[in-house]
């Protein structure tokens, strides 16, 4: 009985030496799944505020840890990369002539992602390393100190409307 073999395993596929196009595609898939995972977690934790408010507070406290600050940065990166790379694919789909410059387009997306993520990373990670204030902390403290006018209550709340 003759044996059969077809090379199609994931391991073999990842050993194929594809170039920019292959790796951007893999990253597009990974960031897409990452965003989906975030969305599922977000739906669950937001639902907690209605059903188990205590657990909601607990979840928010977990998110304040340094680990989740990095995870949140990963979410920002995923959304940013997925959006910009998606626009590159749209451009290629509607103007196939752009594909003659496909590698340059990949590097243009990479540069845009890096230029955008660097200031965001600085703002988000600064407090973790004690290099600056928590974004929005000053506003929160001002509101807590009783100067509520700086933070506007939603119109329906001010009017006493119950949702």
């Amino acid at each position, binding site marked *: 009985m*003759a*044996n*059969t*073999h*077809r*090379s*199609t395993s994931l391991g*073999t*596929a990842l*050993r*194929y*030496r*594809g*170039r*920019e*196009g*292959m790796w951007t*595609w893999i990253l597009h898939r990974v960031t897409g799944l990452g965003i989906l995972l975030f969305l599922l977690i977000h739906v669950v934790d937001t639902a907690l505020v209605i059903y188990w408010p205590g657990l909601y507070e607990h979840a928010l406290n977990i998110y304040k840890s340094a680990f989740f600050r990095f995870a949140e940065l990963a979410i920002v990166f995923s959304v940013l990369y997925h959006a910009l790379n998606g626009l590159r*694919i749209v451009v*290629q*789909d*509607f103007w*196939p*002539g752009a*594909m*003659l410059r*496909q590698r340059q387009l990949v590097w243009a997306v990479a540069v845009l992602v890096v230029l955008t993520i660097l200031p965001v990373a600085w703002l988000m990670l600064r407090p973790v390393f004690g290099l600056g204030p928590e974004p929005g902390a000053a506003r929160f403290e001002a509101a807590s100190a009783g100067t509520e006018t700086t933070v506007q209550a939603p119109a329906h709340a001010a009017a006493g409307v119950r949702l």
Partner: protein
Amino acid sequence: MSMVTLRIQRFNPEADAAPVYREYTVEVDPTDRVLDTLNAVKWYQDGTLTYRRSCAHGVCGSDAMRINGVNRLACKVLMRDVGAQVTVEPLMGFRVIKDLVVDMEPFFAQFRSVLPFFINDARPPERERLQSVEDRERFDDTTKCILCAACTTSCPSFWANEDFVGPAAIVNAHRFIFDTRDAAAAERLEILNDREGVWRCRTIFNCTEACPREIKITKAIGEVKKAILYGTARA
């Protein structure tokens, strides 16, 4: 002359349960091609090594294989460009018949499915069916295909789904879809609008990078997608 180590994936379906790698040391010139090195192994070291080659000059498309992890024609790659350690493996996605020889029948079935031949039932003119230089230029790139399967077997969409019609078949459909003398563009666009047709392409560009004839394959596929979207190849 220098010594190189050739690491070849071997598979004999009548003896091996799974492929194995064997190493051969060969003396080569920098201007030798990978095909010459395979010949040196087969002729002087191990006559059981099996691979396809015919013209040996990059025209027949017989000796496409994975060289250092990427699809190439063995007759077009020089030893000086691959280093002292070379890994040679069969094309991915097709059944291995023996060593570096894969079953190309599914590939040719994909090719045939797009009607890769001239169709025009109108009465031919007295002389040639004339065409402007610009109209001929429109599909010039896709006339260059030699059906080596380097593109189709480099495509992750094809690895994941062997029913995908694959880049080579789309290239050959493009060659006729955009030919003003041909009358069956609509029929081919209908065939490629299938769920196993052009829409499985994710513009990964492995095909374009692998093509030994430097056909802009992903661009050609993009043009076919656009023709389907707008309902005409004459836009």
